Each structure stands twice: as C-alpha cells, then as structure tokens.
C-alpha cells in the first residue's frame, strides 16, 4: 500500500491494538452493521466517517461495550472483549452530549473514575489538577457543568476520560454541538492532545473536512458496510468505490470498461479513447475481469491544461465551456470534442491576469496514470 509521505513513518512500526472480525449487528430485522472487519492500530488517530445511519456510532458503542455484536468478534490485544462488561474495559468514551454528571462539580466529574477504583484522596487531587491543566481548565474545578460553556464541558469530558489513561479513547461526534470557530479550535486541540498523550483515538464524525484534517486513517462507512479504510490522501486521490470517490468534494468520474493490465496500471476503455490508471494499492481493480464496467476518478486539481502531447499518460481533446472565478481558485469546465456529453472540471489557482483560456477555446487536458483511480461499480 503506497502510504502517503506524512503517514509513512507513523504507520510502519504500528501493531494492531483492537480488531473487529466479521462483526454484524442487527436490531430486530434491521442490519445496522454487515461483516465489518477493522483493525485499529496502536497510537493512531482513526476516524470513522459516514452519513447518519451508516453505523459509525454503532462501531464505537460495540468497542465501548454498550452493545454486543450479533455475530463476530472484537479482540483487544488478541483476546476477545465481547464477554467483558463495559465497566471492566480499558477504553473510555467522550459522549456526544458530554454526559457530565450535573450534580457533581468539575473536580468530582473528573475524579469519578479514580474514585470508582478506590484511588487515594491525595493522588486523586494531584491527578485531577494535572488532567484539568492539560485541558486548560485549571481554574474551573469548583464549578458545576451547567456553569460552563459548550467548549469547556467538552474539555471536562475529555479530562474525565483521559485521567484513566485508557488504551483507546472513543469520541462520539464530540464537536457536533460546537460552532464553527470553536470547532476548529477543538480540532487543533484534539490533534495536539493525541500526539501528547499518545493514546489511540477512535473518532466518529460525519464531517469530511474534519476527518481529512485530523486523522491518521479514515474508515468510510455507508449503510453498515465499510467502504474503504486508509490515510486521508489515499481516500481522496485513490478511492476504490463510487461512494468514496464522490464523498470528499468535487471529482471527475469517467465511465468505461476494464482493459488489459500493464505493469502497475490498467487500461480503461472509454468512448473517447483508452485511459491508463495505476492499480497500486487497489488489488480488487488489478484483479477484476476484463470488460467490467468501472469509473476512472480524477481530481479537478490533477488535470493539466494544454499539456504537450505525449507528456501525459492520458490525453483528451476538449473545448472550454466556461471559466469561473471563485476566489483563490478558478473552475474551468471543458467538454470532450469527440463526445460533447462528457464534461470535466478543472481547478486552477486564480491569476490576476486570468488563466489565458476562455469559453470556446479548443485545447487538451491530460493527466498521469498515478493521478487517477479505478473505481469498481
């Protein structure tokens, strides 16, 4: 798997900490998870991303022990945790609504887990002070949760979970209730915190941007099935399914049928000529039968405008339909000359003097095999 450069050094030495093996979850006749296999690596920031109802929170609740799988196994350090009750699992949760105890002060909330374990008074005091300092709430110990803002409550919930030094911290859409600015701050804070405490974070969200900016790896869910797991750049540039290809912003999807393999790439036959797409890290695409209907996914920013012929693996004659200035970048819409029904979107950094193209121009678009991805239907 060609891990993207920023993640390469981090993924290399990791080992599997928790593993979901063939997990199914049914509520009555409704199947909310289907044959989920997922390995969570020690020390990573893994985001489970999906639209509502995709089963992402269900995975978190299965790990936490709030619900049991209908079938399949969950192994921690190689041992099944399915029979282990919630209160004995070495994982802690930050709840979507924070779930702070309203009748206890911030101090008491944070100390709760230590009290349960019978830790001595003095040790509790010093550890609570340290935990509150980590989340920058040192002054707020004597307050009640109702006297705090949303962001502060969020941090109390984090301190309360982290004070127990869990092997995995489970975060269930913890930023959902915060406004945009606070959300960005908390994203930064969580990423820094995760690096400091070196705890495995499993973070659930439905926000693509949040997932991309925060995670070491993302697990994309749809309708109870894992679509794809990988580093953000891999999901962004090398999607394997139509859903993932369309999930993170604009993408060009070109329909075709699979042709022959040649080294690390395959040919895709399209109505406007053959395209070549790399298959590295895409064993399904590499192994799929000739003639299978697929799509080639290529990002608007990866398309080159008017490349010299022969300098790109893929080349296409087009007519510019529209050039639209949208601020720091400009959108260029181009139609294939052979097949005017096929449109492509390009994105270019805007220039004060314009991009040198105008609607009606005949030109070409090109890109390399490594810059696109074969998406199986």
């Amino acid at each position, binding site marked *: 798997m060609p891990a993207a450069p920023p993640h390469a050094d981090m993924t290399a030495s990791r080992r599997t900490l928790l593993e979901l093996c063939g997990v199914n979850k049914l509520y009555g006749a409704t199947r909310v998870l289907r044959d989920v296999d997922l390995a969570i690596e020690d020390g990573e920031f893994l985001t489970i991303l999906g639209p509502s109802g995709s089963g992402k929170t269900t995975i978190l609740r299965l790990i*936490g*022990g*709030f619900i049991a799988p209908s079938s399949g196994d969950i192994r921690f350090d190689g041992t099944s945790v399915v029979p282990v*009750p*919630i*209160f*004995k699992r070495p*994982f*802690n*949760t930050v*709840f*979507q*609504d924070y*779930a*702070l*105890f*309203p*009748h*206890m*002060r911030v101090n008491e909330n944070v100390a*709760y*887990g230590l009290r*349960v*374990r019978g830790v001595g008074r003095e040790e509790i005091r010093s550890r609570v002070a340290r935990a509150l300092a980590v989340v920058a709430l040192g002054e707020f110990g004597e*307050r*009640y*949760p*109702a*006297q705090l803002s949303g962001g502060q409550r969020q941090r109390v919930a984090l301190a*309360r*979970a982290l004070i*127990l030094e869990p092997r995995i911290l489970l975060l269930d859409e913890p930023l959902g209730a915060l406004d945009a600015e606070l959300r960005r701050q908390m994203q930064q804070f969580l990423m820094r915190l995760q690096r400091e405490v070196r705890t495995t974070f499993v973070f659930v969200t439905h926000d693509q941007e949040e997932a991309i900016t925060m995670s070491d790896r993302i697990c994309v869910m749809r309708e109870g099935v894992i679509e794809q797991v990988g580093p953000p750049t891999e999901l962004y540039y090398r999607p394997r399914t139509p859903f993932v290809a369309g999930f993170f912003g604009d993408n060009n999807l070109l329909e075709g049928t699979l042709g022959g393999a040649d080294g690390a790439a395959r040919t895709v036959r399209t109505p406007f000529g053959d395209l070549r797409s790399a298959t590295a890290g895409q064993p399904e695409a590499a192994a799929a039968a000739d003639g299978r209907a697929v799509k080639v996914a290529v990002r608007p920013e990866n398309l080159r405008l008017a490349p010299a012929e022969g300098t790109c693996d893929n080349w296409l004659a087009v007519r510019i339909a529209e050039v639209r200035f949208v601020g720091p970048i400009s959108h260029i819409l181009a139609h294939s000359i052979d097949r005017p029904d096929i449109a492509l979107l390009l994105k270019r950094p805007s220039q004060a003097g314009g991009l040198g193209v105008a609607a009606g121009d005949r030109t070409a678009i090109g890109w390399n095999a490594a810059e696109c991805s074969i998406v199986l239907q």
Partner: protein
Amino acid sequence: MRRGAWVALNLGLPAALILAPFAAFLVHSFWRMDGFHVVRALSLHNYRRFVSEDIFLPLFLKTCELALEVTAIAVLIGYPIAVFLATLRGRAKYAMVLLFVVPLLMSYIIKIYALRSILGNNGFLNRLLVATGVLERPTGFFAYNFTAVLITLTILLLPLMILPIFVSLERIPRSLLEASADLGAHPAYTFWHVILPLSLPGVVVGASFTFILAIGDFITPTMVGGMTGFTYGAAVFSQFGTAFDWPFGAMLSVVLLVVVVAAMFLAAWLGRPRGATA
C-alpha cells in the same frame, strides 16, 4: 385586555381565593367563644388553651409523627416501585404506570371502603392469614386503630410518592448511566452515586405531597381509626362540626398551616437545583 388588568387578575384571584380565607382563619383564631357567641376581641386565649390542655398538643405531635411515618414508609415502598417502573420498556412500562395512577382518579371514599374491606376484622387480609395458617383467628391489628390509619394513609398516598420519583428517574439521561459504567463503575456504584442523587428531587416532591396530605387528613381516621385512631385533622374537623368552636378550630388550623408551609419551604430548599440545571 390591558396588561395591567391581566396582572391584577393574576395576582388578585389567588389573593381573593386563597389568601383571604387564610387571613379570615388567622383573625378567627384570635377570637373566642362565649357560650354560643363569638367574641370578636383579639386574644391569645385559644393559643394558651392549645399549649396548656393536655389533649391537643400531644395529639398534634402524635399526628406529626404519624405523617412522618407514612412518608418514610411510602418512600421505602415507593422508591423501589418507581425504579421498577423506570426499568420497564415500551408498552409494559406505560401499562404499569397507568396501573399505579388509576387509583388517583378514583374517589377517596371508595378507596377507603375498599381498604376497610381488606383490612377489617373479617376482611380479606385476615381471612388470608387465617387460611394460610399464619394466624389462628382474625386479628384486630389492621382495623379501627392507629395502625389502620397508618396503613390506609400509606396505601392511599403511595401513588403520589411513586409518580414524582418515577418522573425524576425518567429524566436522568441514559448517557449518564453509560458514562458511569464507561468510567468503571459497577451498576450498584452507579445507583448510589448517580441515580439516587439525581432522583432525590423527585423523592422530596413525593415526600412533601405525602406528608402534607397525611398530616391534615381527617376522613381516613374517621373511617378506619376507630377509638384510638384519632388524629389532629379529625380534631380540627370536630371543632367545626361538633363542638361549634370556630375560633378554636381556626387556631388549630393555623398551627397545621404553619407546619404545612414549613414543610413546603423545607422541600423547596432540599430540592433546590445545585449547579443549576442538568
């Protein structure tokens, strides 16, 4: 309607319908009877009589004790029932809750008659105990005495204890219980440190309902109390009904009112929100 008139109505109606009768009682309590005439001169005559005669003060204290006992027993029985109701799910829950609410909709008198036929010397309970061999012959323990008043009041007021506790249990977010377990707490620890403290406001409301209604009740003692089950409420009733001593009756009522208002303030203080809202 003008805003001023609306405010006047909102303040005026309660004042006219609640405060005015109270004020009338308070004034009456300082008057006295001379034969069959009310002497409309203010004096502490009735209050002196209350403290000096050895009937009313002991009866009052005994009735306070009775009301406290009823309240305590109702908490001890009502709390587990409320917990049980709160743990039920779906249709079963509301069927069971309804079962405990329906008695509140029935006539008080009918309920007392029903209880009398259960607790009486020849009642269902005695027959059951004799039939099962627990007792050799029916006991008079359950009816026409002070214990009968205690039992009857407790049973009658139990729904008023269960409901507020049930509501306060229902209002505890599930995620708090999950958070407690997630932090390593055994279910018993969660009960003592999360569920119980958060349901106490319900207990306080239920206890104040129960205590206030028990201390002033005069029908139950009249109907199941027999000779020994005479209570303060019944004494107030008899001052108005049989003794025709309205000033003394008013004075006894004022004492009762003071205790009831004190109980309400105590309940408000105990149930005050700590750390504001949840």
